[in-house]
């Protein structure tokens, strides 16, 4: 009788232990301007957590995602980060806009809670604040333009046009584009902005046409405004090539910009021929019944990187996780073939500068890789 009592106690204790989870906070944007990016990235993160849990979790515990929606608003983002810390999150993954992620850092730095963003591209996230608890694994804006420029170098451009939108991110990417172009001695003969909610981009494209550039660099991240630019480009019948930021890597352009984007080259962090991508695409289809896209990969990689750090830390102690995260050396879905996320000494931006690719739209589809890296 005493034996069975002991077994019952052990079973009860075991079930209590089994129910214990590792809480990871996830801040996303479900209704704001970043929703088109944040939603698929969040789906990828959820899929990643489910996959880890199916395989037994980490350190014998399941992952529990605590998901919050900050609408990409920095003013409420920090409050949500605080809420997640109070709820016991050992890591926070940020999947909304860069300014919101930046605001969350004020909390994670003070609360000494590890935080990472697998998709934000603003260069300032790891440079403006000296926060040893924050990492960025999304491709930086400066890497994007360096990769695009490396691809365009053979064409020896001297005069180019730059066009963007008035979103925070669009402005940040344009600034990065501009700095790198000017550093390379390339003259920017037209620098235009299409504002959110515009009904046409015709005046901007006329101005660019009048400046007679050899190519146009597109830094905008608002899909609708980018489609206006492509429409005006087609209507005016101009022929200079367009080189775009990673925004064109969002598959929706295959639908909303049908017949407008063929020949446009764009920078991407996703190579469909990479073995990790093929495995992810198959697993995602099997697990969810849906097709995946590159944005799913960002969220998936984010959760996998966190899981990898916790596994190597061997504990949910935040300080140990921080130390393990800094030692990351991990090949994920995103990035060119062979790329691994890692953080150089003292650096917390972990996307390999040579990890991006340039692809081209062909027959209204995102086509082949035409260039890899910044060389």
């Amino acid at each position, binding site marked *: 009788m005493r034996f069975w009592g002991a077994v019952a106690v052990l079973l009860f204790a075991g079930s209590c232990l089994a129910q214990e989870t590792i809480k990871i906070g996830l801040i996303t944007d479900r209704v704001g301007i970043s929703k088109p990016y944040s939603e698929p990235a969040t789906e990828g993160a959820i899929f990643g957590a489910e996959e880890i849990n199916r395989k037994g979790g980490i350190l014998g515990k399941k992952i529990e995602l605590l998901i919050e929606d900050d609408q990409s608003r920095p003013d409420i983002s920090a409050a949500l980060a605080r809420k997640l810390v109070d709820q016991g999150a050992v890591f926070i993954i940020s999947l909304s806009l860069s300014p919101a992620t930046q605001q969350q850092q004020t909390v994670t730095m003070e609360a000494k809670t590890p935080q990472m963003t697998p998709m934000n591209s603003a260069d300032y996230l790891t440079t403006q604040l000296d926060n040893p608890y924050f990492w960025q694994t999304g491709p930086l804006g400066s890497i994007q333009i360096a990769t695009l420029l490396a691809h365009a170098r053979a064409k020896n451009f001297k005069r180019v046009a730059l066009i963007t939108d008035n979103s925070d991110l669009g402005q940040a990417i344009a600034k990065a584009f501009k700095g790198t172009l000017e550093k390379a001695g390339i003259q920017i003969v037209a*620098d235009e*902005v299409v504002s959110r909610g515009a009904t*046409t981009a015709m*005046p901007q494209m006329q101005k660019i046409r009048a400046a007679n550039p050899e190519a146009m660099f597109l830094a905008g991240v608002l899909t609708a405004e980018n489609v*206006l630019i492509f429409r005006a480009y*087609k209507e005016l019948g101009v022929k200079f090539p367009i080189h775009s930021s990673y925004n064109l890597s969002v598959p929706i352009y295959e639908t909303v910009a049908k017949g407008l984007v063929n020949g446009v080259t764009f920078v991407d962090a996703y190579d469909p021929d990479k073995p990790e991508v093929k495995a992810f695409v198959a697993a995602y289809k099997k697990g969810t019944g849906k097709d995946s896209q590159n944005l799913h990969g960002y969220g998936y990689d984010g959760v996998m990187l966190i899981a990898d750090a916790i596994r190597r830390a061997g504990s949910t102690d935040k300080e140990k996780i921080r130390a393990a995260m800094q030692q990351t050396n991990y090949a994920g879905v995103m990035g060119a073939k062979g790329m691994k996320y890692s953080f150089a000494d003292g650096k917390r931006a972990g996307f390999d500068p040579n990890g991006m690719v340039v692809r081209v739209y062909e027959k209204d589809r995102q086509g082949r890789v035409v260039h890899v890296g910044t060389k």
Partner: protein
Amino acid sequence: MQDLLELAVGATASGCIYGLIALAYLLMIRPTGIINFAVGEWAMIGAFGGYVLLTKYEWPYPAGMAVVVAFLCVVGWLTERIAVRPLIERGAPLLAPILALLGMLVVFRETISVSFPPDPMPVPFAFEIQDQKYFIIAVTLAVFAGAWFFFERTLWGKSFEAVALNRRAAALMGINLTRVTAFSFAAGAGVAGLGGLLVAPNVSAQYLMGVPLAIQGFTALVIGGVGRVEGALLGGFLLAFAEQLTIRYAPIPGGYAQGVPLLFLIVFLLVRPSGLLKAKA
């Protein structure tokens, strides 16, 4: 010169969209005094209606257009019943329905946001891509001609004018204020939805498209004045031409040209708050 001609057609089409949104405001402000900033969200619903009927179910354009406008009229009527009439019947101040309608704005946007995928959705052109501008201009002129005829030549229109001039006196003369208010919201929503449907092939149907359209339409209304139907169209044209000519020809950095509509709004509110066209005596 070629640039100017291309711009003139484009700005006229943009001005028509702004004018339609301004007309939607005007149809409600004239008899009720209520500024309804949810018109932008009604335009957004019109755009998504175009996506569902014309893209997803591939309806013929005229049928899709008619159903979208009719649906928006019902949405406008329901909005009036839910968010405006109860407040008016309880004698609430004018600010109360305006705030309630701001709440409805959020309800409309969030409903669409959770009902559709996050990406912009394609809406087909009525004709070829290059003919869409002329189609927008033709439809808008027809709508404004109809609105002018309604206000100037029909008894119903006269009753609207009477309510606009003096609400209490109109009620004493036997005009049904409730019906006029309901009709004004239904018509306002129909016109706003049409504006959204017409602009959607260019900008796609997206859940955040409402607020910019609401601001542009309101600015056009302030410029043209709420006194006359033609004012809404005139305001739309002036705003669109000012925006696009500034971007194209003003020697200022691209980003600064975005301030033109707001500058217009401030100048007109300070200098000529009644707008360019004044109401007939």
